């Protein structure tokens, strides 16, 4: 049903906009992770399980971790 997809997309876009506007970089990274997670669910809806797993493991998991490490080694607040 299209409604589920629309809901996921709305959450996804909201998280995306939130990530870009957020001043605190940790929160911003986590929100991008959420976007990746939502997209991996969409991939499941599209019928691409392999891609969903990859997006979840690498996109949501590892990218977010790398971003957080980078934030930790620089500055948390955006001037």
């Amino acid at each position, binding site marked *: 049903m*299209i409604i589920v*997809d*629309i809901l996921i*997309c709305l959450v*996804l*876009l909201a998280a*995306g*906009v939130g*990530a*870009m506007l957020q001043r605190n*970089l940790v929160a*911003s*990274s986590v929100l*991008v992770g959420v*976007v*990746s997670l939502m*997209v991996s669910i*969409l*991939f499941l*809806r*599209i*019928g*691409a*399980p*392999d*891609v969903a797993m*990859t*997006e979840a493991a*690498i*996109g949501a998991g*590892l*990218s977010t971790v*790398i*971003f957080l*490490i*980078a*934030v930790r*080694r*620089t*500055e948390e607040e*955006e*001037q």
Partner: protein
Amino acid sequence: MNGLTPSTLYLATAILLILMGLAAVLVKRNLLKMVLGLSLVDTGIHLLIAALGAHPGRTAPILDDAKYLADPHTLLARVNLVVDPVPQALVLTAIVIGVGVTALMLSYVVRLYARRGSLDIGEIGRLKW
């Protein structure tokens, strides 16, 4: 909602993600925020490519059910039961490349911060003209 096919929805979301990411890169001055923006663009692109292969009502290209066994006439029937696998293969590669580039960019940001003490894009503009 009537004209809205799943593909249009996915593509529209993908395009919005890409534009959001590029907007961040073009507007925000913080290096980390720009790399986050690019990560968003990457995710958007992956969604776009996968969406191009989407086909409502067709299942994943995993032939794990007896009905897919090698039988000439089901061979052709199989084509309209399963989603196009090629975009998925492309997205797989694109995701890994994306994380590779992101990792390298973040290393540069960390090293630049250590050297210049600031994350502002204006600070790294000594090479010019």
